[in-house]
């Protein structure tokens, strides 16, 4: 896993109906170190999804640059794994084949890539679901597959776009705890997009608060790990950080 640098990144959209330009992102600079977990927090329309789409290479930047381990991003690539809010699993592939997809694209032979996929499925407690199709799984399980599918391809950076926004509250808390556990075990570099203050603080080493396309604050999260909701709900430092972040987001 490698580091990620955003330098003076701007994105201006053209609205052809109104004939106007909309600035989604304005000269954002950000450094995510190797093995660091950074949450981008902000309300709807603050530009956080734009950041993810730019880093993923799905859309071109208007100006500025993105570097992954020193190399400039020019388009989507396997060095940046993406976890989508909509899961984006391939409905026609089994869970195993979904997770083995990245290794397959790398040309790894069937036996080996299936071994890799099973190993990662076990990491998320999904070994029993390997032969099922995505639509046969609950939303929470589908997103577990989404996470390990990205991880199994061993990306330098893991990009997560509000991945738990469409699952129910209880499942979300379980998934967040699992993600911190997996992060501690594998130490991927993570850029995590969310509008949920508690989630942002719970998961990250650093919370970057975004407002109107600019960085409003960059907060260090000095809360010990392993983190669980039961422990952190009582934790004074966690409470202070979340209320601080909440104030920033509400003022944004």
């Amino acid at each position: 896993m490698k580091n990620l640098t955003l330098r003076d990144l701007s994105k201006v959209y053209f609205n052809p109906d109104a004939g106007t330009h909309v600035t989604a992102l304005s000269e954002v600079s950000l450094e995510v170190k190797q093995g660091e977990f950074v949450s981008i927090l902000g309300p709807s329309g603050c530009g956080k999804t734009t950041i993810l789409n730019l880093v993923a290479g799905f859309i071109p930047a208007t100006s500025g640059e993105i570097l992954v381990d020193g190399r400039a991003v020019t388009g989507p690539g396997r060095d940046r794994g993406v976890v989508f809010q909509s899961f984006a699993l391939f409905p026609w592939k089994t869970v195993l084949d979904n997770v083995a997809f990245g290794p397959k694209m790398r040309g790894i032979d069937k036996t080996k890539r299936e071994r890799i996929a099973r190993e990662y499925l076990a990491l998320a407690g999904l070994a029993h679901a390997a032969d099922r199709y995505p639509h046969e799984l609950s939303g929470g399980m589908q997103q577990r597959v989404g996470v390990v599918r990205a991880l199994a391809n061993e990306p330098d950076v893991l990009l997560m776009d509000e991945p738990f926004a469409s699952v129910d509250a209880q499942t979300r808390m379980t998934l967040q705890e699992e993600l911190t556990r997996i992060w501690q075990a594998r130490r991927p570099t993570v850029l995590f997009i969310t509008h949920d203050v508690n989630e942002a603080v719970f998961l990250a080493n650093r919370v970057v608060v975004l407002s109107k396309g600019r960085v409003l604050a960059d907060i260090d999260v000095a809360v010990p790990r392993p983190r669980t909701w039961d422990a952190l709900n009582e934790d004074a430092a966690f409470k202070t950080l979340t209320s601080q972040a909440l104030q920033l987001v509400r003022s944004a």
Partner: protein
Amino acid sequence: MTALLKAWSLYARAVARWPALHAFVPFIPLVTLWAIVAEVEIFPRAFFPGPMEVVQAFASLVYKGILPDYLEDSVARLVVGAAAGMALGIPLGILIGVSPRVHALVWPILLFFQAIGDIAWLPLLIIWFGFGLATMTFVIVYTVLFPVVLNTVLGVRSVPIELHRAALSLGASRARILWEVVLPGALPNILTGLRNGLGYGWRALIAAEIIVGTSGIGFLMFDARRAGSVVEIVLGMIVLGLLWYAVDGLVLTPIERATGERWGMVTR
């Protein structure tokens, strides 16, 4: 009322046990009605034969070998035409679906020719190719092509952009995405196109056989008209229906079950 409900629940349970039942039980009242109308001779028997006469005609034509030969001819034409229609239509549909430029250039032409029905081509085709296989093949390919192309385009365009992005981020090349994402994503729609195409193609084939044929089910029916044999015309109509029933049950439905429905992309 209760008796009806009881009978229905009996039927529902029987069908659950022997699924084949629901393929022919609905036809029992229909055939019975037909038999009664024929039997009381509301119409002259020669104009309105009963089921048994049709069965006899069936036996006789099978015995003479005419029906199997003609059936084989018709089905072979349909299969060849459908295969050619798909071989042309699926790649063309994918090309139009993935490329806005090709779409802009080809779509208007496609819509234009779609409106010129298969039969409308026959006068021209007869002058060009005469009464024969080339004319019939053209008509079937033409008929199968449009539903396949139009539905393939629809299918390609209905693949969510997230799936493209997911595949790109997992390291897939554009070519691999075509095979791994676009084609399976469009498959349920392609099958709908195939289903429509085969249905239209089958009808077009019979029409073509009636006009230009020298063999086949359509020719059999038209030949029977010349001989004034209503019973053979009716037999031909029944064969058409049965054959479609077989294509649906033995080919189309199993493919749909194994793909779109299995993947949860199509709800039954």
